[in-house]
């Protein structure tokens, strides 16, 4: 269970998160919706430990562990995965090498045995098949020359391989056509189960037609202003954020 209480954070002295309270029980998928500049990406970076985002108050725990005290790689090994809004290019680093290094780093941190190249390839091919991706993606440099859709699918592939217990998807739907959107949604839905939870951050309701959340939260000006069931997303789509804020 991810539990966030009174979380405040700033960038360069500017307060962005102004007291977030949120609980995502294990096994549930929650959506966070909000307009631009409401603090959605900041929340995902604070939870994953990016430098430059200073936590000024409150707490965040995952299964009882204080994740804010951990290094980013320790959070990853503890099962926290962030699907980036803008996946980063690593020129010259083969995707297969990157995925295997990451997977083995996490396995090692958890005291599990590392996979050799053959075991890894077998696993990767299996997962890629399930995501209708071609092998060719493994041979290319990490995200180098990938289209927007390919980058996002690569994020989903990483998630499928690393098998996190909580995934934060930071506007994974942005810039995706409908086919790519379905592949991403299928990838997330395939992970759903009693041991997996997700925080789906999105600007639009569209993604939530494919990944139906258990709960929807509206983030505005650094606070959760409203929470509800999946119907809340549709309400937002119909009425806009301003109406929700006025009512809140």
């Amino acid at each position, binding site marked *: 269970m991810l539990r966030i209480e009174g979380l405040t954070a700033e960038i360069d002295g500017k307060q962005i998160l102004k007291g977030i309270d949120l609980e995502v029980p294990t096994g549930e998928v929650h959506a966070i919706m909000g307009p631009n500049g409401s603090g959605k990406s900041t929340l995902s970076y604070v939870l994953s430990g*990016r*430098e430059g985002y200073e936590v000024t108050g409150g707490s965040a725990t995952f299964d009882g562990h204080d994740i804010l005290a951990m290094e980013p790689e320790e959070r990853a090994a503890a099962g926290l995965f962030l699907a*980036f809004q803008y996946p*980063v290019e*690593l*020129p010259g680093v083969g995707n297969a090498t990157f995925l295997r*290094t*990451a997977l083995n780093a996490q396995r090692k941190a958890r005291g599990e045995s590392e996979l050799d190249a053959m075991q890894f390839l077998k696993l990767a091919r299996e997962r890629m098949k399930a995501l209708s991706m071609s092998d060719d993606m493994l041979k290319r*440099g990490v995200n180098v020359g990938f289209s927007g859709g390919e980058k996002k699918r690569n994020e989903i592939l990483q998630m499928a391989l*690393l098998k996190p217990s909580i995934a934060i998807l930071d506007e994974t739907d942005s810039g995706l056509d409908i086919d790519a959107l379905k592949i991403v949604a299928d990838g997330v839905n395939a992970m759903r189960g009693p041991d997996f939870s997700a925080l789906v951050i999105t600007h639009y309701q569209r993604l939530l037609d494919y990944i139906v959340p258990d709960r929807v939260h509206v983030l505005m000006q650094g606070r959760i202003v409203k929470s509800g069931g999946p119907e809340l997303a549709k309400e937002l789509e119909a009425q806009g954020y301003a109406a929700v804020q006025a009512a809140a």
Partner: protein
Amino acid sequence: MPAVTETIETVQSVTESGYKWGFETDIEMEFAPKGLNEDIVRFISAKKNEPEWLLEWRLRAFAAWKAMEEPRWAAVKYPPIDYQDSYYYAAPKQKVAPKSLDEVDPELLKTYAKLGIPLREQEILAGVEGAGSTPAEGRMPVAVDAVFDSVSVATTFKDRLEKEGIVFCSISEAVQTHPELVRKYLGTVVPQGDNFFAALNSAVFTDGSFVYIPKGVRCPMELSTYFRINAKSTGQFERTLIVADEGSYVSYLEGCTAPMRDENQLHAAVVELVAMDDATIKYSTVQNWYPGDAEGKGGIYNFVTKRGACRGARSKISWTQVETGSAITWKYPSCILQGEDSVGEFYSVAITNNYQQADTGTKMFHIGPRTKSTIVSKGISAGHGQNTYRGLVRIGAKATGARNFTQCDSLLIGDLCGAHTVPYIENRCLSAKVEHEATTSRIAEDQLFYCRQRGLSEEEAVGLIVNGFCREVLKELPMEFAVEAQKLLQISLEGSVG
């Protein structure tokens, strides 16, 4: 062989510090008196039982050296070197020259085993006798010439190679056994008076490797020389000469390490390559001399002259270097492209961390028509390291249709280091095409965070990104060398982040 995957793990246990090759071998040595004069040159020549012509050759070099000044144009800083305060000859004491590995001092064999170069095991595993024996563990055998301070202590696989007509031995031995070949080619690519350090080397060179590949022969295994400086206050001046006759092919590897010492030691080598018609020489270096400590104390001065002559039509010389060690690197492996359609290549990775300085690059002389050269240089600076690429592409009037492509990329880690690029292009031929691309970048914060979010530690992330940055060069290395080089890059950058 320096190229085994386990090398680094093997030697990691040897010392506690970052430089894992810094131990000293306790062995009885024979030294010439300290200092440099004509008598020392005569002493070295006599020790090696050299013919008169070679002694005279050395003395001419010495005379040239005395009249020369140490070059100061490189972007490196170091206090004046006292050339009289060094030993120019240091050799493990041995009654007679060893005929086989059984006669080599066990301490020396142990030293090489510790460095991950098991001279003995390797021969036994692959079977000294019987050409065509299968390589052990599916690994290609590598013939090794091991040079310890001033002398070659062992060369493996000699018999096997001799069956193909290949000569692979120490240069001292070649002077005795193949004097006509040595005399024909020695100094024809790097003349005695070429530059200050080459002249010094020509006067006092003590050993090194000699390779001759006969016409039409493709050398069946990698040839490798492993240089080790062990003795204190000693300079190492090795000389390597590789001749590839018409239509032949050879891939040659070079590795080197030295003990950790507070003093700076001088390594001034000369490498000459000659490629005849349709011959190819691939020369790879993983340079791992002691770089000095984190404060910049000690380390090797690596002042080296490497040059290859593509004498024949369609000949090819390819230099690949991974420079991670040395306090100062001054080195410009070059190609003289005389033969028509000949090809020169230079692939380089140079890392400077802490207080290391590197001024390295290449020279491509296009003389023949349709000659082609490719230069890919990757410089990585961390800590207070200073890294300079210095290159010259010269295209002569007769090099019609010549082509050059140069790519220089610099990567900076931290904000105290420096990267400099100094390319010279001289073109006297209208039909030639010269391209130069250069980039300077930092490891971006978002790249590091991306890797760490996936579970990599900061150092693993830097290692991965740096290896990606160097990929174009590393893929030119023979496979086993590439694995070692990758790990070496990571070790060289330890402590450079955070």
